[in-house]
């Protein structure tokens, strides 16, 4: 008999062996004990959490000669036949290979025959998500009302591919990822019985690397057992291609200090050591997360998987930087890790990503910038003022980025450029406000919507007995004729509304209207803003003219 891998050898044989799926095992056990077994189940969940195993245990439990019993005896011929896969009453179908409607028709043809030895015929359809659409539909009637001796168990990793019509005919058992603690305990029990010596730390590392899957963890344990008799955490790290803590620390320190030569040296070392660059990128993300946790929490003992020495080192490094900066770097690195994973040359991608991230080390935390500003008293706290002036400029826009990314950007009010103009004229007009009010009423009596909107957009000023309309260049030319035609009735209406006679004159504004598009272009040309945008893949969300009078040197930039 050839060697059986641990994952197969230790496949759960009864419900109590199944780790981490307590709610489901309880439902199934109770259903069997009470004789309330549904005719169709669907087991879903990630890989290696016990779906196929549960299906087999269920089949065993209901066909056991002593049963149906929640705990199959494991000795009777039915149990033995199911265990070695030779039972004629338990039919395991690979849904991915037999996915056509013909396969399902064939199955329907066979369903009606009574079981040969056991009480039930159990059809286990694994990877059921691969059935074709018509195959699913062909199954529906059988699935809803199967012969009394038939039980279906569908198992799948991709729940979303199962049609709702199938789902509604089955009892759904959602399997969960197994916690790393539960995996560790199970691994310990198995390795003891297998005579594998493995340290507690190493077990923890294996359990974590398995990412919630029992099978993955056993596969790793199997490999470890094959090249070492006394498994240490070093062995696990070497097998999984994990990086030394000191090297991680070195790279992170270089990154935080902006030491680019150091970064290149460290990457060189990594590749000479044969470290897996892709998993290194993931670990670096984890490391920055640890850094952040260490600086946020007073007592991070439980949240971090580090020993005292490592914790001290992490704390030391966290003290060199700020939370803002770490957050920025972390989000840079998360993006970089994705890039590196997809790159054909991970080393190059890692180098470039780290160098890019190292520029973040030049940024000052926003707290410092604010202190800086208040200390040196930059007039006006509008961002544009900061962006336009000297040294602070480099610092100011960048720390703003996280704020605006959180969509907390200031000034969401989307005012059109001209409105402030009208408002300011209302405030600064010499004449009583009611004259302007009257003017508006007068215009509204004009039965020409286009013209009246043009007139309302124009800036109106009262000068003695004159109402001066300041039109912008385009409007003045275009509407000159029609305005002069309607001037007389307008004057009359104005007199009626305002109660006094005013002469209406028109003037052409020579000031260009500020348009958002122009502002945006202007802002984009600003080197500081350009750099900030490039560095963070940002874009300008909104621009607000800061003040009408300062000719809009800078729009406030909300990246």
């Amino acid at each position, binding site marked *: *008999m*050839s*060697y059986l*891998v641990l994952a*197969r050898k230790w496949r759960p044989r009864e419900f109590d062996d199944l780790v981490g799926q307590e709610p489901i095992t309880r439902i199934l056990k109770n259903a069997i004990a009470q004789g309330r077994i549904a005719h169709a189940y669907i087991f879903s969940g*990630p*890989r*290696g959490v016990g779906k196929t195993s549960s299906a087999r245990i269920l089949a065993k439990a209901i066909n056991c000669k002593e049963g149906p019993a929640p705990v199959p005896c494991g000795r009777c011929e039915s149990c033995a036949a199911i265990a070695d896969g030779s039972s004629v009453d338990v039919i395991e179908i*690979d*849904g*991915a*290979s037999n*996915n056509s409607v013909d396969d399902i028709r064939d199955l329907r043809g066979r369903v009606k025959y009574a079981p040969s030895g056991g009480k039930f015929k159990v059809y286990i359809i*694994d*990877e059921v*998500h*691969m059935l074709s659409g018509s195959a699913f539909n062909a199954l529906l009637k059988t699935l809803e009302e199967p012969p009394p001796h038939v039980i279906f168990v569908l198992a799948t*990793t991709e729940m979303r591919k199962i049609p709702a019509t199938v789902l509604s005919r089955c009892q759904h058992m959602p399997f969960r990822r197994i916690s790393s603690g539960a995996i560790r305990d199970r691994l310990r029990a198995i390795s003891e019985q297998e005579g594998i010596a493995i340290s507690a730390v190493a077990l923890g590392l294996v359990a974590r690397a398995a990412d919630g*899957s029992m*099978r*993955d963890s056993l*596969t790793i344990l*199997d*490999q470890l*057992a*094959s*090249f*070492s008799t006394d498994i240490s955490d070093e062995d696990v790290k*070497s*097998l*999984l*291609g994990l990086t030394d803590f000191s090297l991680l620390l070195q790279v992170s320190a270089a990154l935080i200090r902006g030491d*680019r*030569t150091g970064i*290149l040296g460290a990457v060189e070392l990594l*590749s*000479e*050591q*044969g*470290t*897996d660059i*892709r998993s290194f990128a993931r670990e670096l993300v984890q490391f920055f997360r640890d850094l952040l946790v260490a600086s946020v929490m007073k007592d991070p003992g439980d949240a971090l998987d580090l020993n005292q020495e490592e914790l001290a080192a992490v704390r030391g490094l966290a003290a060199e930087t700020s939370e803002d900066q770490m957050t920025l770097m972390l989000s840079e690195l998360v993006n970089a890790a994705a*890039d590196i*994973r*997809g*790159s*054909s*040359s*991970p*080393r*190059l*991608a890692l*180098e*470039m990503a780290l*160098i*890019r991230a190292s*520029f973040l080390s030049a940024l000052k935390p926003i707290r410092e910038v604010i202190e800086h500003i208040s200390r040196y008293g930059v007039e006006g706290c509008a961002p544009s003022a900061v962006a336009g002036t000297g040294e602070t400029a480099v610092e100011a826009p960048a720390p703003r980025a996280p704020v605006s990314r959180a969509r907390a950007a200031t000034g969401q009010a989307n005012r059109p450029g001209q409105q402030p103009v009208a408002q300011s004229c209302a405030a600064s007009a010499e004449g009583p406000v009611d004259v302007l009010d009257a003017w508006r009423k007068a215009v509204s009596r004009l039965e020409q919507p286009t013209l009246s909107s043009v007139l309302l957009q124009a800036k109106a000023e009262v000068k003695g007995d004159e109402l001066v309309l300041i039109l912008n260049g385009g409007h003045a030319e275009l509407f000159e004729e029609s305005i002069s035609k309607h001037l007389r009735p307008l004057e009359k209406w104005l007199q009626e509304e305002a109660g006094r006679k005013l002469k209406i004159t028109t003037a052409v504004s020579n000031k260009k209207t500020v348009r958002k598009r122009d502002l945006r272009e202007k802002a984009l040309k600003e080197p500081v803003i350009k*750099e900030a945008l*490039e*560095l963070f893949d940002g874009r300008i969300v909104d621009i607000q003219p800061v003040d009408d009078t300062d000719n809009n040197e800078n729009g406030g930039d909300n990246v």
Partner: protein
Amino acid sequence: MALREVIGQERAVDMLLGALRKGRLASSYLFCGESGIGKKMTAVNFARAINCPATDHRHGIQDDEPSIFPADIFPSPESASPNADAGISGLDACDSCESCIKFVSGTHPDFLMVSPEERQIRIEEIRMVEESLSFKPFEGRMKVVVVDDAEMMNPAAANAFLKTLEEPPAASVIILVSSRPELLPATIRSRCSRILFSPLPSEACRRVLEGKVPDQALDIITRLSMGRPGLALSADLIAERDWFFELLGGMLRAEKDAWSSRDDMERWLDLLLIFLRDMTVFRVTGSGKGLINGDLADEVKRLAQSLEVKGIIYIYRELSFLKGMLMFNLNKSVTWNYTASLLRKEMAV
């Protein structure tokens, strides 16, 4: 060639030999690592070691089962591999028996290699594998199937393979080889023992290439291969780089596109990315040390002069994004013009 002679993948080889020694052969393996670092070669040699009758593993046919080979046909392992150290002999392939020779000539009946056709491995091929695995080994100990570029399996093929991967017939080993394992479904990855391969350290890479490339070019080629000797052996890296510079020159002079195929584009962009990386390294360190194109330091310097590190990184990111889009059938001349304008704008050449 035996497993021991695979250069620069000590970790992987140790693991495989350990599995042989302890008789803990997994039923399915996933060999992953970048292309050109010896994954497939190791897989073939592993299959050989498994099947070499001169070896003495505890897996496969039971000890008391009579061997189908008369023992005296084969030289004893000691005389067959004189340079193998004592702990290894008896595990590794002998290189001289009938089985090993059949491997060399590619006619071993218990060995099957599947590779993608037209960038895909289809369900038919997987069915063929399953059928072949359903028979007992013909003359060796175990049937070995190697699936090269396993990430090219289409979803139907991958799913159809799952049940076989998890519980293959007795006396069979499946080895998936992939340079992009993250593209494989998690359900496949979880069923395989994963063996990591990494690019070779430069010393080992040099050893592999020694004697296979012209001596005077050994240094340069070692560096250009970036720890992937397979690349250097399958193509003339220096000629390739000359081709790259020729096209780069043409591009900067606003000539028309000169790529002939999509593979061309991909390779060219790869080389450009390497060159940009070198420019960055040069700007950071200010010296020619650590450059991949070490022999062209002057050229790197000349082009890097006009650029800030940030500018280079900007181009790098744009182009690596572009490279990622290649699979969507980018128009060749549009891509060319875009790249050209990007370079000209930033480099001010």
